[in-house]
């Protein structure tokens, strides 16, 4: 067995060397891992897309590289630092690419040169990819956030389902009430249950022994506090003069979060979230969570059990659904920008529906959307309310919660420290901690401004 393996591997190695030597022309490397895409279940489709491209033409050899998300930043930075940078990275959103600000190619010249038709996308989608560095990508996918909920838990508690459409009221105890954060908090407490079946509104409720939680913000990327806070409306941590700044409604959001964890107990603590009970930081798929705010890319996990989609609650009369719009980017170190753009156009064009079926994103091209949702319905036959997902696109957060901040990586690091504190420590003076963070952010911004001015 070993012997046949040795023979086989030698032959494979030799063959692959020969094949590489034989493949004339340009090689374009595509790096997957900064966002979604590196799961084994996703790899196959992407490899098939690469093979199809290589079979289609002879000028460019496309090569794909998968790196798990946890080590993707260090891997990519090592490659860039040593001159081994890939040509294309993605799918990636702003959160994943802010770390590499200044490394991306402005593709506008190649759009112009090749006569690429941008009008197939809504203008807003194109503009979303444009920063002061230029046009950094072609629109690929939209991942709006919405409210995931488990109908079964609502049935058990005898509660009505959350509204299926934005603007609809909620029916609580037979009466219409506004579907706002307060209402959601109220039902989240009812949905939070201890081992004896008491819910979080009762006096005899035992917070040491919770078995089901009402709500959480599923999955936190870098600077996740901004994600959390966007439930209360969009905001930005920089004011017009470039100073650190905390919007009032975000301050309210942080206080609400801390109270929801430590006093009302309907949001899991850090330790609870990391426990086996909530599937090791993946509460969504644990069956012990009733409502979650998350993005469309979480459709990966819908199959496990009966989730459905609903409208997010409003705050001060305004609902906000965070938007992610991940796509592919070209690194400006590429030696073959024109060829890389050709690949980019292929990935966001012909290959996009196949890719999006594993990335879980809604096509940015409106014409492709019906087909996309038809595919999803095949996959999740429980009948998910996709209409509210589409509707969520009307309530995007502008500016985006993933907006670049001065000294971005350090800034996010400081914001994460606040999240860690609020989710792992009871009895924190939230307002004082926010003020402390703002003061620190100011210093971090100034360090950046000083360096830029140098």
């Amino acid at each position, binding site marked *: 067995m070993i012997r046949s393996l040795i023979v086989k591997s030698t032959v494979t190695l030799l063959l692959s060397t020969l094949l590489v030597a034989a493949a004339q022309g340009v090689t374009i490397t595509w790096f997957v891992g900064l966002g979604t895409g590196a799961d084994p279940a996703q790899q196959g489709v992407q490899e098939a897309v690469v093979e199809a491209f290589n079979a289609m033409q002879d000028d460019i050899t496309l090569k794909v590289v998968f790196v798990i998300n946890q080590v993707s930043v260090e891997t990519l*930075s*090592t490659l860039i630092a040593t001159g081994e940078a890939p040509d294309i990275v993605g799918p990636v959103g702003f959160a994943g690419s802010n770390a590499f600000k*200044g490394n991306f190619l402005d593709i506008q010249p190649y759009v112009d040169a090749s006569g690429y038709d941008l009008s197939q996308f809504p203008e807003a989608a194109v503009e979303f990819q444009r920063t002061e560095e230029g046009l950094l990508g072609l629109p690929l996918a939209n991942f709006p956030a919405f409210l995931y909920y488990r109908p079964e838990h609502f049935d058990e508690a005898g509660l009505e389902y959350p509204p299926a459409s934005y603007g609809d009221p909620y029916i609580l105890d037979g009466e219409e009430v506004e579907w706002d954060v307060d209402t959601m908090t109220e039902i989240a407490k009812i949905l939070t249950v201890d081992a004896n079946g008491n819910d979080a509104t009762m006096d005899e409720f035992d917070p040491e022994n919770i078995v089901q939680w009402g709500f959480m913000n599923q999955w936190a990327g870098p600077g996740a506090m901004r994600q959390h806070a966007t439930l209360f409306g969009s905001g930005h941590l920089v004011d017009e003069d470039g100073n650190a700044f905390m919007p009032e409604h975000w301050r309210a959001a942080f206080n609400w979060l801390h109270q929801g964890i430590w006093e009302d107990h309907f949001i899991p603590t850090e330790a*609870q979230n990391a426990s086996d009970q909530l599937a090791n930081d993946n509460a969504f798929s644990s069956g012990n969570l009733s409502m979650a705010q998350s993005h469309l890319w979480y459709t990966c996990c819908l199959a496990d059990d009966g989730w459905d989609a609903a409208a997010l609650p409003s705050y001060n009369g305004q609902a906000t659904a965070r938007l992610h719009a991940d796509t592919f980017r070209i690194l400006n170190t590429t030696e073959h920008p024109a060829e890389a753009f050709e690949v980019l156009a292929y990935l966001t064009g012909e290959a996009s529906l196949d890719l999006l079926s594993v990335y879980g994103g809604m096509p940015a091209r409106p014409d492709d959307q019906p087909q996309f949702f038809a595919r999803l319905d095949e996959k999740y036959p429980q009948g998910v309310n996709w209409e509210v997902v589409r509707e969520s696109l009307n309530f995007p957060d502008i500016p985006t919660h993933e907006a670049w901040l001065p000294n971005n990586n350090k800034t996010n690091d400081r914001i994460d420290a606040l999240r*860690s504190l609020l989710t792992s420590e009871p009895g924190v003076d939230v307002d004082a901690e926010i003020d402390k963070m703002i003061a620190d952010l100011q210093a971090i911004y100034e360090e950046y401004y000083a360096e830029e001015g140098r």
Partner: protein
Amino acid sequence: MMATAEMNKPQAGRLMRQQQRWGWIFLSPWIIGFFAFTALPILASLIFSFTDFALNKPEEIEFVGFQNYVQLFKDPLVSVSLWVTLKFALLSLPIAVALPIALASLLNSKHLRGKRVLRTLFYMPYIVPVVSAVYIWQGVLNTETGWLNRLFGLLGISGPDWLNSVVWIYPALVIIGLWGLGNAYLITLAGMQSVPTEYYEAARVDGANGWHRFRHVTLPMISPVIFYNLILTIIGLFRYFEIPFILKQGTGYPGSSTMFFNIHFYKTTFVFLDMGYGSTLAWLLFLITLAVTLVLFASARYWVYYASGDSS
């Protein structure tokens, strides 16, 4: 040595030169390897520490003189992370040095049956890949559902929040570290195996009991191996990284309690992509560790016994 001293001078000199030549021949793999694979990266990292090398902007590298070294004094995380590292080192060093000796003695005991199985099983955790080990410990040490606290719960004790409390995280890390003692115990065992049996027999004839034999034969005879463990443990503690990094995704939480020096270095280099300052931090760590190591080497002559009668 005796033999050479009795020979006449020119012959001794020739023998000396011949011995030296053989010495260099045996040493050559390392010398070549040092220049081929190690010297260059070390030198490069030293040069980086005088630049503003950002990993994602390799072409914009510029010399900045001693600016990174000045930054060391302004960066509050330098003292925070050194203190965290020192605290943890003081807590775990005695355990990391003493426990392998105890374990090796137990597993070398002539009264023990099932040695092969026991030795294998005690080493086994060391083979568990670190990612999988961290998962295991997260499962075992979780406040609510961890086996340890569930065990405490059966005894009516409410266990601490091991992994999210700025106090309990250190005992938790020490407990996790116990699984990493496999190498040290095995080395000690190998050392004990090489103590010539005659020494024990001689001690027995002199009427020494078990403890005396351990204290006056085993310990001095394995002191070179203990010295090795000590040096390696200290270097390892200064470079402590993998477990807190995977456990807390390199964040340093809770608070700054897992902000070990090496995590600060790693974050600076690979999250903030500041290779210039990161290299400076690495060199600070290098100098501190080297100083401690040199002191220990200087102390070795007082307590490490080499049967060959040689050290330098």
